[in-house]
């Protein structure tokens, strides 16, 4: 079998030219400073490529229960808060159960292409369970990409083992590079058979994270850094974190909002630490992420494979049902490879079309043209989608919205707004707030929301909030619809005044 093998020996050069043949334009701008090798991996990676991610699914295996540090935004009654919303409990699987479940899902859903281990604790604090899972899958489903997320505490010691598997990328959660800041985020770590607290603990953790990051980059393994934005604790500091981790070769720095509610029983939740507002988050993401659209839509490896096709298929893959399944693994593997070849060909032809001069959708790449006044300002447009790159979700069913920035240069994915995620703490989080209130708040800053259908009540409420719903583009490809709406707004004279301070693509 022929798989895109991972070259462990070639260190990724961080200084290759920013613009190579075939990928000039917006894509090159987004991946500025990354080597060709890294860029190729990113472009075809279902988690990071804007194009690829509509076509693929990933899932999580909850095999790693233990953790070796405490974060102030986490309560160990629940799953690790780095990777899931606090308050979630997943069913712990043995490595064998996890392998069988993954194979069953991969047989039923050929889009499955990535298996991640991120919890419910820290994968590297459970090395036997984590590596047994990777070993089994590397053998039985060698086409699946494997990934893991870690707090980094024991990363340097585990790298040799890690590098043995088909691990294309590792996510390290790095919230600080200064032990003073760290002491406010991590009350303790378990290190060399002792519990270490405070500044001393943070200092060890930070040193291990940085060393682990450097070692992964030296081996050519993609490293993504996640940071949790904690207002008043590390918000300004994250710019420094971003500068350092990027200089060391992390290909992506993803800033996620703190979620702190008293109900979750976390230190931050109980102490009344507030979560960032959507605008604070976006400002920081803009600064840390630069222009890399892939950062915004990276889904933190959420376990969405089972819901890929819109309907929740989790019930099909309970342990009993998986145990009873008879699966032709070879046939399943071939189906996946065939699907991937088809998608790759589609993406290739789409890219080729996009590169053809004269294509109205793409020829507007800024620096290939003489500067002139923009036709109209850019607009944020939210989209309800269940995947496949289409506007195919009912407004009321959407649990997250993709946010596109539409401008003359085209539609650019700039973020994801989860309707149940943006809690700003304090009074706005009180009882009376409905899901619709929260959704409207999550969509702040957007001027349109596109969905397949929407009810009368939310329609009126959204309009009153200055967000015009639009159900006219159901089942259309997202980017086409977003641009059609932008052109409508332009024609209607709504885009004349550039909004001060707004970034235009």
């Amino acid at each position, binding site marked *: 079998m022929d798989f895109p093998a991972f070259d462990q020996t070639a260190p990724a050069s961080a200084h290759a030219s920013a613009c190579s043949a075939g990928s000039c334009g917006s894509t090159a701008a987004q991946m500025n400073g990354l080597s060709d090798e890294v860029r190729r991996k990113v472009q075809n990676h279902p988690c990071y490529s804007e194009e690829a991610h509509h076509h693929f699914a990933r899932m999580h295996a909850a095999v790693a229960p233990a953790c070796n540090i405490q974060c102030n935004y986490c309560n160990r009654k629940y799953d690790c808060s780095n990777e899931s919303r606090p308050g979630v409990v997943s069913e712990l699987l043995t490595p064998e159960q996890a392998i069988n479940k993954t194979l069953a899902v991969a047989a039923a859903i050929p889009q499955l292409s990535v298996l991640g281990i991120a919890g*419910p*604790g820290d994968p590297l604090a459970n090395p036997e369970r984590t590596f047994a899972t990777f070993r089994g899958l590397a053998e039985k489903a060698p086409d699946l990409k494997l990934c893991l997320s870690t707090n980094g505490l024991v990363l340097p010691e585990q790298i040799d083992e890690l590098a043995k598997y088909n691990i294309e990328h590792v996510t390290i959660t790095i919230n600080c590079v200064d032990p003073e800041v760290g002491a406010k985020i991590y009350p303790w770590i*378990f290190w060399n*058979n*002792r*519990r270490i607290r405070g500044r001393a603990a943070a200092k060890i953790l930070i040193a291990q994270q940085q060393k682990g990051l450097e070692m992964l980059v030296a081996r050519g393994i993609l490293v993504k850094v996640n940071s949790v934005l904690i207002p008043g604790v590390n918000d300004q500091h994250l710019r420094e974190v971003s500068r350092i981790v990027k200089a060391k070769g992390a290909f992506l720095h993803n800033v996620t909002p703190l979620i702190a509610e*008293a109900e979750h029983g976390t*230190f931050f939740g109980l*102490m009344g630490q507030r979560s960032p507002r959507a605008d604070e988050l976006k400002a920081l993401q803009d600064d840390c992420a630069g222009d890399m659209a892939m950062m915004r839509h990276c889904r933190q490896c959420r376990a969405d494979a089972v819901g890929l096709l819109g309907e929740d298929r989790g019930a099909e893959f309970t342990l009993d049902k998986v145990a009873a399944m008879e699966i032709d693994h070879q046939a399943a593997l071939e189906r996946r490879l065939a699907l991937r070849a088809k998608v790759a060909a589609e993406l290739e032809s789409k890219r080729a079309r996009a590169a053809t001069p004269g294509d109205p959708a793409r020829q507007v790449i800024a620096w290939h043209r003489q500067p002139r006044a923009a036709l109209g300002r850019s607009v944020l447009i939210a989209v309800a989608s269940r995947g496949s790159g289409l506007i195919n979700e009912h407004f009321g069913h959407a649990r997250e919205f993709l946010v596109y920035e539409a401008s003359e240069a085209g539609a650019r994915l700039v973020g994801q707004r989860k309707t149940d995620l943006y809690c700003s703490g304090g009074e706005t989080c009180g*009882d009376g707030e409905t899901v619709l209130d929260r959704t409207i708040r999550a969509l702040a800053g957007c001027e349109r929301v596109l969905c397949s259908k929407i009810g009368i009540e939310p329609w009126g409420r959204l309009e009153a909030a200055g967000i015009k719903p639009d159900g006219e583009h159901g089942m259309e490809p997202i980017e086409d619809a977003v641009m059609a709406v932008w052109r409508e707004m332009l024609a209607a004279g709504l885009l004349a005044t550039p909004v001060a301070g707004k970034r235009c693509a």
Partner: protein
Amino acid sequence: MALEIVESCVNCWACEPLCPNQAIYEAKPHFMVDANKCTECAGDFADAQCAAICPVEGAIVNERHEALNPPGSLTGISPARWAAVQAEIAAR
């Protein structure tokens, strides 16, 4: 001389692989310590390993039923603050 795991244990598995005497085992509704095997890590480690990694206050107790990680010692949330917030939540 033995430690005991009590009901606030969240079954996180962190302690189990660390025990030098394999005294800890998975059980329902929570993990257990085999009192015949537990030495409180004497001779192996300066600190009882299970209590040094356990993330939950009060989950591990000694023979006098004193918590090795008493309230507030791991989270930094004082028992008074904890009670006040719980009352606030209950009153909603």
